[in-house]
């Protein structure tokens, strides 16, 4: 057996064994699952660290600094501030780095979400309701769409009790929400079953050779 086929076969069996370890969790927690879980956490944490180093820290920080692009000192300094967390008496410095990330994140979110979740959504809700020139069912669907959006918004009113008219409209909103959640749930089943088919195919075909 050459080294390479050994590696391939061994890897296949290791993959199969670990697959079974994870599936065993469906029955109940057990040492096999614990083994796979702890191994998985260690491997992925190590992988993540290495990946970050080679794909982000080195090309985006170390290399530019070596080329004397000094603007990269700022993230380096903020990064080091972040690490001061490990030392209680200077740990407060880490808040500077955190504040930078939160502040810039908030700024970008405001613009992105006002555009994509606000303006864009209003625009696409402005649909023609005029029955001339289009089939009746399109108009009916447009009206339903409109009722759904508006009642959904009313459901999210916080400063008004859900009583009286508001309550009734909000209740229509809930109807739409529930139908939507049910539909999304049903729609996703197929994608999840595909994943299981993939795993069973791996076990039955590649490892056992049944199929």
């Amino acid at each position, binding site marked *: 057996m050459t080294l390479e086929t050994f590696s391939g076969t061994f890897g296949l069996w290791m993959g199969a064994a670990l697959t079974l370890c994870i599936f065993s969790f*469906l*029955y109940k927690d057990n040492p096999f699952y614990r083994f796979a879980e702890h191994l998985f956490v260690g491997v992925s944490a190590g992988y993540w660290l290495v990946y970050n180093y080679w794909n982000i820290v080195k090309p985006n920080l170390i290399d530019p600094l070596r080329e004397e692009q000094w603007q990269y000192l700022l993230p380096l300094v903020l990064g080091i501030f972040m690490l001061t967390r490990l030392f209680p008496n200077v740990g407060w410095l880490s808040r500077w780095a955190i504040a930078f990330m939160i502040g810039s994140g908030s700024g970008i979110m405001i613009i992105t979400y006002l555009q994509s979740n606000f303006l864009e959504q209003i625009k696409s809700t402005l649909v023609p309701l005029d029955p001339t020139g289009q089939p009746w069912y399109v108009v009916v669907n447009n009206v339903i769409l409109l009722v759904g959006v508006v009642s959904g918004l009313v459901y999210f009113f916080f400063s008004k009790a859900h009583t009286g008219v508001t309550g009734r409209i909000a209740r229509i909103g*809930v109807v739409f929400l*529930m139908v939507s959640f049910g539909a999304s749930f049903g729609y996703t*089943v*197929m*994608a999840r*079953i*595909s*994943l*299981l*088919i*993939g795993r*069973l*195919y791996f076990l*039955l075909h590649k490892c056992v050779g*049944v*199929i």
Partner: protein
Amino acid sequence: MNFWRFLLKMDRRIIFVLVGLAVATPLVVPLNLPVRVTEPVRRLYRAINEIPSNSKPVIISVDYDPSTVPELRPMTLAVLRHCFRRKIPVIVITMLPAGAGLARDAMETVASEFPGSSYGKDFVYMGYKPGASLVMVGIGQDFQGTYPADGFGKPSAELDILKGLHNYDDIAMVLDFTGSSIYESWIMFAYQKYGCKVGAGVTAVMASDAYPYLNTGQLVGLLGGLSGAAEYEQLINWPGNATIGMDAQSVVHILIIVLILLGNIAYFVTRKKHGAAQVAGQGQKGSS
């Protein structure tokens, strides 16, 4: 009535076993349930059916990685089988390093089903080449310059298929199977720049993004996910993994629906008997 109460309190592990069996059984014992063919799939089938036999080859670009194998491998096999059966020469390539083994595997699987076919004449494997867009443009300029050797290191000049093959003009169609946006690059380069027909097979999630290209004619046809693959298998009358997969899908979907129905019957039957208060309710607007 004990059955209904048992059902309500049923250990969920029984459901797990049922789901496992519902998926595994059709994999081992295929049911070959019929599927209804949709238009995008039929279009791709027709386009491949119109390619004359024993003339221009098609390029099959296998651009998926292990995470999307369950959805994309069956459609790749189905299309490959169609090509092999119609004696359309096939050039298999991949744009992903992770796709190399998978592309070869798909090609060899189908080739072994057609004992009359021979490597170099009916199909070739050109392997992985980095820089997807460079390769796509390169094929338009000079195929053999882009691929001086096949995926096993054999010089391209020695391969029958590639004799007289210069660029996209000598290629009948490009077919891309991918879980990423590589098919858009194929459209951009092979179709837009060089006028070569492009067909694609993508995951079910991505299919809705790809439909617009179908309407504009930038894609000749489209396979979406496992169901697209199953439809194609139906068209070529060769039930394979997708049909089996769809069998499993059907069985599990029906199983879940039956479970929901039984659960509700049990709920109403026991409630009538013991009164509503007995049933453990949950808080959330009663919706949980």
